[in-house]
């Protein structure tokens, strides 16, 4: 028989750690924003993000996406550590022992509550060794002020580190389609670096995400 008393985690039923009103705390007098674990959060004003994009474009030109991607990787490594530590504390279990469904759902909620848009993990290519990630309402894409090319290198970098850390393997994440280039949503492919080597070339040939995925899984 099931004992209801055994279903609790320290007399709690953990739900959504990232529920907005419990997750975010601010102290106007001290001018700080914190999350529920007391970690400091940073609010980025839109003009700053715009300025980062335009400043990088002016200073580094073509290297912009490389710079953003590297920044994203740094951010992603720290983000992963904090994500796992806080989630692990909340669920009183190591993140590696969490069911995948709950882990991914927490990631989606985490993304949303920080104002990075809506992220969706599509596992339909899981069997072929790839994950697809969709992001909509990304402030980074919206504020890039660029038309006609993929601009979410920062997020691609974050996701690269995040999935490297989870899997312990050499993983890369590449943006395949971008709202800035007319796509409905930003689409990323995640997979082993060596299997994604040809993707940059395919993107240069203006292949669609569907064509690229067909080539990758052929």
């Amino acid at each position: 028989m099931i004992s209801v008393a055994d279903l609790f985690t320290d007399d709690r039923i953990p739900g959504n750690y990232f529920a907005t009103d419990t997750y975010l705390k601010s102290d106007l007098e001290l001018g700080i924003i914190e999350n529920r674990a007391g970690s400091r959060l940073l609010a980025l004003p839109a003009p700053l993000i715009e300025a980062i994009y335009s400043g990088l474009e002016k200073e580094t030109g073509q290297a912009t996406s490389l710079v953003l991607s590297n920044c994203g990787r740094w951010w992603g490594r720290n983000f992963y550590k904090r994500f796992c530590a806080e989630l692990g504390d909340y669920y009183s279990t190591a993140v590696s022992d969490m069911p995948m469904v709950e882990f991914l759902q927490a990631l989606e909620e985490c993304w949303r509550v920080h104002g990075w848009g809506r992220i969706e993990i599509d596992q339909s290519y899981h069997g072929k060794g790839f994950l697809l990630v969709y992001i909509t309402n990304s402030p980074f894409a919206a504020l890039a002020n660029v038309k006609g090319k993929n601009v979410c290198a920062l997020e691609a970098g974050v996701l690269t580190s995040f999935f490297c850390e989870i899997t312990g393997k050499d993983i890369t994440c590449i943006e395949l389609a971008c709202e800035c280039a007319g796509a409905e949503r930003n689409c990323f492919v995640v997979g082993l670096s060596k299997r994604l080597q040809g993707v940059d070339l395919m993107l240069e040939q203006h292949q669609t995400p569907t064509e690229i995925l067909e080539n990758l899984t052929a």
Partner: protein
Amino acid sequence: MSKTITELFNEAENRYLQPEELQALSGYVDSLPVRLDVYKRLRDQEAPLMQKVADQLQGSLPQEPVSNIERSLKQALLLLRTCAMAMLLDDEALVEEKLVTWTRKMVQAYGTQQINRVLYRLLQENLQTLFVASDLALLERPMTQAESAFIGEQPPASS
């Protein structure tokens, strides 16, 4: 507290409250002793109530793996606690913010609609044996808000 009442407190510098606004406030204050009472009884009854539901659920779905049943029971415990709080504070937004999206995704991801439907019915039946109709009426709104997500119905197209 309900949004209407919370917003009343922001009016201090503008004006004194209108009679109908004071009415809304005293309506909530008057209902508070009952809300507290129902809340306390729910708290005290949580364990026996949910244990009974758990036993009946296992009896109704003997083929179902225990892990699935346990997962759904956890969702039900979360639902009950959230609805109890929403009832106490008369806060409609609370269920939506803390429970609905999360539960809806979990139920879809694990595909436990069938178990949750049976579980929700058993929960309702057992609540009816513990509480009188006027107590249940207080719980009804948050429970209804949570129901469709919990049993895995698609949200209405407008939301």
